[in-house]
């Protein structure tokens, strides 16, 4: 069993559910951003909906065991205006009870390995991979997470089947999965969004809300694409995804005086370059001792220099625009998929993720969720 350095954190103080019905009392819960519509919602503290969709007033349940059982599977109704935010919808109660959710967007073009990386990352979180940083994690929405397991994790890790590539033009921002992360200071929901570069060109309410809401971005760079786009002058051609996404995000946020988001640039599929001494030096390392800001800086420097050497300057764009910002070598699968006899692409060796949680750990440090010595230096 993995025990984080310093032992497990004490359970967070759970805000007490109100005991007596006070229909007109102001909610003690803060307004938070709904992951489904990205509008702002506030829970009144007692109205929930059970698994059958029936409304339940928690104040009327006096049996603590029964109440806990109801709360465990309860949903709350999003209070963002229905006409503006896609109609009536519900979200897991855990999304509204704790700190402001951390919204993380994954940005990359089609076939960069973005979806595979996200799948590997979620699986590692599920397996307690964040414990080494002193964090506990639980799926925020069991149904959504179960579906993710069935449709993404099981095919990849159970049958070594490659994902279908993201549609070349991904026109929207997709909420993928979320976790409740318990840290020394409390509980923070963390939500993952899959963002196609094309989607961010669109002037839609959902996209615009995401641009305001996102706090951290994971940019996924593909070494094969960098090589493929190399032009006659030796410079890697432009991947518009990063620049398009970031320019739009920064411009929209500047109008609202919101700072650029934190960023992690990830060289996915690093196994393709594993015989390069720089990549070899990092790829086999696992974080056993928790957050190491100096190691993160050293790796970021090596990734930057590696991409610079490849003349892949478009992929370094986030470094010039985002603070804090880190860079990482990762491999979601440690190999490439090949088309097999059944017209299904499979990973012949099986699948072995390498360093897939490092970018997330860096983002959690940059966002204050990991509060270890030196965390304030990460990405700065």
């Amino acid at each position, binding site marked *: 069993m993995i025990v984080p350095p310093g032992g497990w954190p004490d359970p967070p103080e759970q805000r007490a559910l109100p005991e007596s019905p006070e229909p007109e009392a102001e909610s003690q819960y803060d307004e938070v951003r709904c992951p489904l519509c990205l509008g702002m919602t506030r829970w009144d503290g007692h109205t929930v909906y059970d698994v059958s969709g029936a409304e339940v007033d928690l104040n009327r349940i006096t049996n603590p065991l029964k109440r806990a059982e109801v709360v465990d599977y309860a949903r709350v109704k999003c209070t963002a205006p229905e006409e503006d935010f896609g109609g009536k919808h519900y979200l897991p109660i855990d999304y509204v009870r704790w700190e402001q959710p951390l919204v993380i967007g994954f940005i990359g073009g089609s076939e960069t390995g973005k979806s595979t990386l996200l799948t590997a990352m979620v699986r590692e979180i599920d397996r307690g991979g964040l414990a080494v940083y002193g964090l506990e994690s639980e799926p925020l929405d069991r149904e959504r997470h179960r579906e993710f397991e069935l449709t993404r994790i099981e095919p990849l890790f159970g049958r*070594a089947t490659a994902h279908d590539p993201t549609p070349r033009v991904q026109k929207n921002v997709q909420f993928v999965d979320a976790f409740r992360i318990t840290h020394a200071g409390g509980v923070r929901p963390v939500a993952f969004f899959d963002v196609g570069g094309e989607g961010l060109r669109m002037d839609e309410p959902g996209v615009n809300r995401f641009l305001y809401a996102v706090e951290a971005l994971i940019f996924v760079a593909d070494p094969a694409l960098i090589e493929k786009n190399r032009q006659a002058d030796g410079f890697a051609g432009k991947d518009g995804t990063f620049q398009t996404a970031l320019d739009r995000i920064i411009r929209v946020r500047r109008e609202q005086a919101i700072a650029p988001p934190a960023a992690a640039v990830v060289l996915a599929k690093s196994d393709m370059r*594993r*015989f390069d*001494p*720089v990549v*070899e*030096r990092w790829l*086999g*390392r*696992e974080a*056993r*001792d928790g957050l*190491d*800001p*100096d*190691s993160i*800086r*050293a790796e*970021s*420097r*090596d990734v*930057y*220099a*590696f*991409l*610079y*050497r490849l003349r892949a300057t478009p992929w370094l764009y986030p*470094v*010039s625009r985002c603070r804090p910002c880190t860079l990482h070598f990762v491999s979601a699968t*440690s*190999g*490439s998929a*090949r088309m097999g006899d059944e017209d299904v692409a499979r990973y*012949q*060796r*099986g699948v*072995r993720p390498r360093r897939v949680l490092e970018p997330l750990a860096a983002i959690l440090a940059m966002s204050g969720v990991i509060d270890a010595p*030196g965390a304030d*230096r990460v990405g*700065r």
Partner: protein
Amino acid sequence: MADQHSSTVAVEFHTPQDGRVRLEARPGPDAPAVPGSPLRLRSLRLTEPWYGVDGGQVTELLQKRVVRTGGWAQWPHYDALDREIGIGLRLLRGCAAVSRPYPQHFSRLVGYDVDEPEPFALFLPYRGEPVSRVVRRFLLPGQRAFESGLFHCLQQLEALGVSHRSIGPETVLWDQRASRVQLVDFGDAAVRGSVVTPVPGSPWRCARDLRSDDPRFDVWSAAALVCYAVTGRPVEGGDPAKDPALRGSSLLTLLPRLLDPNIASRPTAREVLRGLGHFEIWPDVEDGAGDTEFELGGAEFDSYFPPSARAGSVRSESIPAEQRGSR
């Protein structure tokens, strides 16, 4: 690879120069690369000569591969092959960095493909026979050539920060005619500063060294091998230097230090060679030395992120990523 039932197979592979080559060859029978190894070794006799290695004519290659046996092969097998390829490439880069021709006392990687269902590496044919077959057959001049040749191998690996970690009677070959050592099978090798996979104990490894990436790991193994090759007896404690059969060894006076169980107390291969009066020594080769573009990139990063006065040194993470399976 093409049809396995015909007498020839097509072999497509990457070269160390990032080229792509396709050859036709007749495969020989499979054998374990080394007894107990998960990798299989077979010869490939080319149907036509290939001139892809320094312009010389190549008519035969050795193929080392991971064989799929129905279920998924284990990751340790793939990792062993990756180490063969990684070290092979590192040796090629290393001799280019020191402006020397590729040393004949190392196996030479000429190609690989890691995306095949049975990934493989290709080498020029080995030279010589395993030391296990020449035990107690050295004449003194040959014995001394063997000893100095072996330590030349170690010194060059040391210059590259590499430990072989499986030096033994099956991985060290002796070419009697050329009076030359050849060191093969780098599947257990480690690079200093990279992740180190622990290796299992064996009579050819000092028990205290199994997690080390220090190239002096090989110094102990080489000394143990020399004792065995000359006396026919493995080192099992005591003082092998007292064995009369070793009286003529150029390493006689050094043996106690070479076999010191404390790795930090052993001399380096460079020191051993200098002690033997050999001064043709490779300088240390740093990863990325002379890589101007990489250095410029690092400097540009530093301009964005000035090193902090509060920062400590990067922790050395010679942490084993996983236990390697038995070979």
